[in-house]
């Protein structure tokens, strides 16, 4: 599938690379013991180190390093046993020390790859260039008071992972799929909550365009896009803009831009000419970071099953289609839910119920799998009633709706409403005879060759028996008399 944008001079291809900032899940900050939790009154999660007080020194938090290594392993990437922290110096009011500690020349994680799957089933691999650790900045406001600045350093020093992709992305859909996959992996690993609304995951988008077969042209960076949908929009909008610039016979300037979703446009933030000179150099307060292979191995052994592996296992173990398996592994909690429902039961039936009725109900009620009104055990209980033919599939839908509303177990509902399937041949035969008698004309037509009417008779019999008849037995009885 080749995605192109049609310009006046023909088709253009787009080239996209993403830099994702993912906030590390950790108890404390990258270089201090202060809490790294989100929210809280301003300046309640701040140590003297975070505030850049004179004489304060950073001390690397091992937990954050472990999280970065786990993430690297989850991205099937090379773990660099020796890495280094640099200072990135620039005047920015939100940086208490006047520099950011970041890994520049020697990141902890090197090349890796992420597999994505598109809606048409195409599988692609997006290269990861690197993953490095760095500190988040604080927040300051200078326009609230003429003589004072308001500063909140709760975020200052929180560990971030910057995950840089190769410019392998060729369409907005791939960008979306890549971000969703990345988020899924991070969440599985428990290294980042992937919450873009709270800013714990944000993306810088590098976009350029070219004619097929050309080398890369000038790229622009769109900073800090905070939803997957916006990333996809921004790529399209920016690519279209660049195509217009090129087709007007002008060069695209390398610059940093902002995406304005309200006006569906990107705007220049700063040009290359006034780009920052960050004045990197190795942070003299920190020793090079050296990790043992044995520790990396230990972290690898402790990794959870990753989504791709889980999907493949589901296909193999439960015999469900790859697409269904992908849907079920989208989140660890869904996968766990499904496995509980499927265990010892008809796994395909379980998959249909989870991806169909349950997801529908969750969507309708605005809930997630973790606060599902029907537990995996309860859904399993209902499926057991279907399997042992206590209820049929149609009644099961009714029971499911009741479960949603009342929270009662399927067995209780069947009992209370008297929904038990009728398997008494006498009752079925009687209903069949009655339907035949009342629809003599249709019987004639059927016998005259109008086979399609069979469904009509089934429906009438089921209706007469309030849906509780065993459908297989009804079929059999009808075939006999017809």
């Amino acid at each position, binding site marked *: 599938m080749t995605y192109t944008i049609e310009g006046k001079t023909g088709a253009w291809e787009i080239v996209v690379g993403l830099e994702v900032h993912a906030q590390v899940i950790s108890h404390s900050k990258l270089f201090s013991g202060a809490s790294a939790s989100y929210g809280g009154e301003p300046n309640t999660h701040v140590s003297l180190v975070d505030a850049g007080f*004179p*004489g304060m020194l950073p001390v690397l938090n091992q937990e954050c390093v472990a999280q970065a290594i786990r993430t690297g392993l989850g991205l099937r990437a090379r773990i660099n046993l020796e890495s280094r922290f640099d200072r990135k*110096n620039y005047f920015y009011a939100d940086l208490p020390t006047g520099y950011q500690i970041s890994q520049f020349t020697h990141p902890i994680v090197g090349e890796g790859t992420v597999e994505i799957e598109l809606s048409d089933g195409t599988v692609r691999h997006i290269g990861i260039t690197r993953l490095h650790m760095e500190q988040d900045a604080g927040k300051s406001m200078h326009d609230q008071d003429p003589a004072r600045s308001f500063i909140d350093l709760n975020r200052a020093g929180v560990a971030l992972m910057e995950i840089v992709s190769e410019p392998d992305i060729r369409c907005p859909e791939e960008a979306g799929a890549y971000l969703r996959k990345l988020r899924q992996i991070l969440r599985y690993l428990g290294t980042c909550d992937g919450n873009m609304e709270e800013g714990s995951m944000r993306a810088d988008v590098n976009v350029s365009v070219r004619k097929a077969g050309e080398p890369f042209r000038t790229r622009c960076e769109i900073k800090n896009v905070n939803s997957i949908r916006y990333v996809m929009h921004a790529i399209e909008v920016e690519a279209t803009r660049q195509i217009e610039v090129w087709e007007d016979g002008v060069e695209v300037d390398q610059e940093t831009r902002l995406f304005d979703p309200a006006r569906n446009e990107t705007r220049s933030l700063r040009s290359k000419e006034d780009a920052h000179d960050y004045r*990197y*150099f190795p942070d003299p307060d920190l*020793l090079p970071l050296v990790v043992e292979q044995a520790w990396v191995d230990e972290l690898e052994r402790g990794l959870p099953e990753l989504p791709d592996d889980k999907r493949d296992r589901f296909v193999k173990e439960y015999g469900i289609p790859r697409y269904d398996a992908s849907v079920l592994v989208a989140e660890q909690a869904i996968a766990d839910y499904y496995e509980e429902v499927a265990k010892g039961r008809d796994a395909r039936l379980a998959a249909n119920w989870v991806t169909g009725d349950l997801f529908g109900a969750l969507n309708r009620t605005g809930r997630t799998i973790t606060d599902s009104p029907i537990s995996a055990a309860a859904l399993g209980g209902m499926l057991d009633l279907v399997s042992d033919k206590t209820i049929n599939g149609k009644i099961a839908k009714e029971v499911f709706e009741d479960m949603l509303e009342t929270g009662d177990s399927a067995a209780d509902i069947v009992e209370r409403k008297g929904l038990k399937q009728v398997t008494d041949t006498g009752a079925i035969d009687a209903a069949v005879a009655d339907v035949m008698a009342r629809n003599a004309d249709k019987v004639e037509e059927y016998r005259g060759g109008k086979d399609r009417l069979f469904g009509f008779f089934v429906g009438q019999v089921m209706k007469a028996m309030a849906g509780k008849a065993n459908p297989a037995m009804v079929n059999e009885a009808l075939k006999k008399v017809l």
Partner: protein
Amino acid sequence: MSLTELTIADAASGLRARKFSAVELVRAHTDAIDALNPRLNAYITPTREAALKAAQQADEALVKGEARSLTGIPLGIKDLFCTNGVRTTAASNILKNFVPPYESTVTANLLRDGAVFVGKTNLDEFAMGSANITSAFGPVENPWKRNGDDAALVPGGSSGGSAAAVAAGLAMGATGTDTGGSIRQPAAYCGIVGLKPTYGRCSRFGTIAYASSLDQAGPMARSVRDCAIMLQSMAGFDERDSTSVNCDVPDYSAAVGRSLKGLKVGIPAEYRAEGLSAEIAAAWQQGIEWLKAAGCEIVDVSLPHTKYGLATYYIVAPAECSSNLARYDGLRFGERVPGDTLDAMYEATRRAGFGPEVRRRIMMGTYVLSAGYYDAYYLKAQKVRTLIRRDFTEAFQKVDVLLTPTAPTPAFAQGEQSDDPVQMYLNDIFTVPASMAGMPAMSVPVGLGATGLPLGLQLIGRPFDEETLLATGSALEQAAGFTHRPAIRAEATK
């Protein structure tokens, strides 16, 4: 003997023998500060009341037999060490009202061992200088005088306040920090002993940073033994400083007076540089003879990259300082000058807050780190630094300790060199290489020059072998019998 003339070692035994009380000892020093500080300007912030209170507690501890190595000993603290609740300025306007709510590890260690802080000593602003003339709180005067000349001399820098206070009897010892010679050079100028330990030996936590990869705290005192006692307290691993080294602290006092039989002393040819005064060359030769007499073997060695030391230092140190001082922007602490925009506020604040020498080094550092020049300057300097370190490593395969002059000249008068920054930087030509290599080094006074000013010799040791420095230093001290005292001193005013 006056209480302000005692060594720490003697005062500690005097206190234990109840010859005098800690309050008497401390009061003698705070009185001396009251009398002489208006002239010497060795202290930015004397802490008389707190010191007398601490002295009372020291006396109580002495009575209870709970005295530790420094109980009741009055010390000056370079105003680069953050002291809990006591103004800490780095001799800069930008921090002139900064009161830290925390204690540096080094000063906390000294307090743990019972020391009494009599005040915060003056220094070059943010420790940038070799003459203690860049302080926002005014220059420090060296208590020594040239023969027949009343010109005010510089005490050296940047720990000039500490050196002057110790020499003049306004403290029994003082803390210094040494980045390129800031302990050793003022020690030489003021006729005292100053020890820069191995980088990583003393924690940098709570010490205001100048150039982080070089800064190291160390003791300044009137005897080698006193430096050993102070270092014993100051040194040690600190998990709050990632560059502090986790290795045992030996018994430094035990090294003082140790036999030097068979010790190999290296004499690096490259230190016979131009600009080395004849009297210092003579003092150096005298030192060589003394160590020979003490049983040492003298070995000629070469440190071929010495000539690049100063140039490299003036790339690395400003680079780090430009980064370390970026936090002083008027936003969170320190002085703030309003401006129409945020950038204007930064500019006005930093222009008003930093003196010319600090601004010069920030500019140099910003330049050498900037994108187009990083490879040519900073990266090249780091490579040369590696070569300098290798010189020392190779020399120490042949010898145990190196002997060199500390500074090319004795103390000079205020104003004599201040108009030429490069000339000023040359004062550190002998001290900088050991700093670049992270080696421990010490300056010991060995005599007086023709004009009556003290001359110091420098000993440079293997990493974490401060003991050999102390042993060799005490041999020089013994041989020199340096008992001279400066013209301006506590006892002299009585």
